[in-house]
């Protein structure tokens, strides 16, 4: 084994010696101190191995013996290096790839914050930045993940829980926002109760404050129903008032109206079946669009995006993502709706609008729908009847 390694290190040449005096050639080589290995007889001579450094010394022997020497192949470390020298580009690329795989996972190339709905993402990102978690930061410089989590939680009152994950070159922060605490009535603030809309009072139950309306009375929007200013003096004595936080349940029959114009013509975007793809590369936090024109030459188009991250089993996310945008050509066509379809859609939309402004515990007692049609445009009005609590609290005026 050691002999083979030594032979490889020093290098050797396989030569073919042909001619009448090939045996003499071997003898003269031996007399000159040259070592010959693996001599194999061939037609008209021998094939043998000779050390690389000895090869230069056989010229005189060849001349004396009158044989022909032909190099079959060169072996050994030096020969291997010289053959690999021509593949310099290949090795440079290989080294670059090795460096890439060693260096890239040591940095953060993407910071992802998940679970944010109402909280300020910029504020959280800033807190992460202060902790050293940003695109281009070295992972070894980052402190303990639990400390970063605590710092993020301290930075924002809107967060209930957070945890930071390191996935290769990606820092992923999962957060949970604080659930809003239900508003508690401040019973010390004096308030009145006024009507949220027009209606006919059916029952008025007042638990605090001074009643101003009774069942059967018609009230208008903004009218005072219960006053927080309660008189506490007897006739003939100086006026004296107590201010209280009014409470009561004012159930009234109300009418809610909404109207709108609706066209019988609807524009539809139908895919023609023709589509194209556009690639955008995201390299280490920077985005590079591979195509200048995303429209693929279409006048009307819809775009759907899919993101593919480069993740390797050991290294994780490598900071490289491909965003494939699928561009579908669409054709806009005008679709004629029937009268019933227009009315049904209008009713659904108007109902939604009305329901947004309803008070608590509203019960629908009836509805009326009316419309007029002119030039394929429907003017629709929806009236809905409810029994609901119309009282809303407002601060008492002194």
């Amino acid at each position, binding site marked *: 084994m050691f002999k083979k390694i030594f032979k490889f290190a020093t290098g050797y040449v396989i030569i073919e010696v042909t001619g009448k005096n*090939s*045996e003499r050639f*071997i003898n003269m080589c031996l007399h000159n*101190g040259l070592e*010959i*290995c*693996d*001599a194999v007889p061939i037609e008209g001579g021998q094939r043998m191995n000779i050390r690389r450094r000895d090869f230069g010394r056989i010229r005189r022997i060849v001349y004396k013996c009158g044989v022909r020497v032909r190099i079959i192949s060169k072996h050994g470390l030096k020969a291997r290096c010289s053959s690999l020298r021509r593949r310099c580009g290949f090795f440079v690329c290989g080294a670059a790839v090795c460096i890439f795989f060693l260096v890239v996972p040591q940095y953060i190339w993407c910071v992802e914050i998940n679970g944010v709905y109402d909280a300020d993402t910029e504020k959280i990102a800033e807190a992460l930045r202060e902790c050293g978690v940003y695109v281009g930061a070295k992972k070894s410089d980052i402190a303990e993940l639990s400390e970063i989590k605590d710092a993020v939680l301290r930075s924002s009152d809107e967060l209930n829980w957070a945890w930071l994950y390191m996935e290769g070159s990606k820092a992923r922060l999962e957060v949970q926002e604080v659930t809003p605490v239900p508003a508690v009535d401040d019973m010390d603030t004096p308030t009145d109760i006024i009507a949220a809309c027009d209606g006919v009072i059916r029952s008025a139950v007042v638990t605090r404050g001074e009643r101003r309306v009774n069942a059967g009375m018609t009230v208008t929007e903004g009218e005072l129903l219960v006053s927080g200013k309660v008189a506490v003096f007897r006739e003939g004595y100086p006026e004296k008032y107590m201010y209280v936080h009014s409470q009561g349940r004012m159930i009234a029959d109300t009418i809610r109206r909404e109207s709108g114009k609706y066209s019988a013509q609807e524009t539809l975007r139908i895919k023609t079946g023709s589509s194209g793809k556009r690639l955008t590369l995201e390299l280490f936090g920077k985005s590079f669009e591979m195509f200048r024109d995303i429209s693929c030459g279409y006048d009307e188009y819809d775009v759907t995006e899919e993101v593919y991250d480069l993740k390797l089993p050991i290294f994780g996310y490598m900071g490289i993502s491909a965003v494939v945008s699928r561009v579908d050509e669409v054709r806009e066509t005008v679709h004629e709706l029937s009268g019933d379809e227009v009315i049904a859609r209008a009713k659904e939309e108007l109902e939604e609008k009305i329901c947004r402004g309803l008070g608590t515990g509203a019960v629908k007692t009836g509805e009326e729908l009316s419309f007029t049609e002119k030039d394929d445009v429907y003017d629709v009005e929806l009236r809905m009847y409810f029994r609901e609590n119309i009282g809303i609290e407002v601060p008492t005026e002194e």
Partner: protein
Amino acid sequence: MADTMRIPKDVAMDLPRVSVCGDREIFIENHKGLLEYTDTDIRIRMRDGIIHISGDGLRIIVMEYERMVIDGRFRCVEYEK
């Protein structure tokens, strides 16, 4: 004299030392050169004669100034005067 002084004969008289390992390998020391070399016959010159090795697939593994290793399937090793 070599016998009397208990000196190896190959050293004292420059005789060849031939070691045969079964019919597969022959190790020769103190040879004086190669005379003939084919894959069936090898003739090696000694101080006072020739060693003729015949066999099949004969191959010289290593050949140096004083020693030689031959590989192959040997039929006979013969001394020619």
